């Protein structure tokens, strides 16, 4: 058996041998997904990819929105463990809903805020709200001992006052002040009118101010 061919290969044989075998079907899809630049993609693109079954794209999207959803849930529930559950549940619902989400009908951020606020409010209604667990530990270390103690007491007062608020008022504070949403956005997330949102904010601030001054409502 000779080691070399007795004649040179035809040109078409060489071209076929050098041509890469095109991937098809699920393998090609998987490779295309791996090549996607997830950090550079915007939310709408990530959601479209997630809707097509790309779990990595969804993980990227979740990483972007998880901190803010957690903070909204924490403001409303006052409990880190509950807030974690709420934020995860909201994003899990987004995964289930991804293929049906219509960006023309609602913005992703507003939709997520609405789901998170509703889940958190439901939880608070089942279990009475508690003051934030970490409240009182947040005094600035640069303060002197007396000032730090006064700050801790003020934070404890505020935490107790926040726990007194109805959950919808806490949700209004979370969206308007903590997240910095406009009145229209926060109202849409809470499914209320702008005027009703203003009422929630006013009542919440009145009670908090009164409690910080050491008075009643």
């Amino acid at each position, binding site marked *: 058996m000779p080691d070399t061919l007795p004649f040179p290969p035809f040109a078409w044989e060489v071209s076929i041998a050098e041509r890469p075998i095109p991937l098809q079907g699920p393998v090609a899809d998987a490779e295309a997904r791996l090549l996607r630049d997830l950090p550079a993609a915007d939310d709408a693109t990530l959601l479209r990819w997630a809707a097509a079954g790309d*779990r990595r794209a969804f*993980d990227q999207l979740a990483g972007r929105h998880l901190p803010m959803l957690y903070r909204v849930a*924490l403001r409303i529930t006052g409990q880190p463990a509950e807030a974690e559950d709420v934020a995860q549940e909201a994003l899990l619902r987004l*995964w289930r809903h*991804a293929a*049906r989400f219509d960006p023309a009908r609602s913005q992703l951020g507003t939709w997520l805020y609405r789901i998170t606020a509703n889940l958190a409010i439901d939880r608070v209604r089942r279990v009475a709200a508690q003051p934030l667990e970490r409240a009182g530990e947040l005094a600035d270390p640069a303060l002197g001992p007396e000032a730090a103690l006064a700050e801790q007491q*003020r934070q404890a007062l*505020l935490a107790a006052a926040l726990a007194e608020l109805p959950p919808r008022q806490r949700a209004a504070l979370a969206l308007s*002040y903590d997240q910095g949403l406009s009145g229209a956005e926060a109202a849409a997330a809470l499914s209320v009118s702008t005027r009703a949102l203003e009422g929630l904010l006013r009542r919440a601030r009145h009670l908090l101010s009164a409690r910080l001054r050491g008075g009643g409502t």
Partner: protein
Amino acid sequence: MTPRRFARLLDIHGADPARWPQACRGAALALLDSSAEARAMRDAAAALDAALRSSLPQPDPAALARMRNRLAHAVAREPLPVPERRLLRWLRPLAPFGAGALVTLMVCGLWLGLPAAPEPDDILGAPRLMAMMELP
């Protein structure tokens, strides 16, 4: 702008002028320049804003990583997202009309199903007929 309106503005939007509605921001800032009472109200609102800001801790990176990990596991166990059926997608905008039509149908059904109240003539008809037959 009156102090009363300014107080209402602070109650809703807080002490940060950037959050005040554009339409009344100029008047509110002018009142702040001219009124010590307004400045005192603004300072009280700013103190509450600061207290609210510091009362909400930033999420711990370890906690965020744990949440993201748990979420990824939950998503891995979930089936792939299912697109809405094309027919339902077309029909969804009509849902309010569909609900209205359903309510109308139910009302009509109830109305037709209720027995009609008997006319007074029908109730008294038989005895009167008997009496008239006995007269001769």
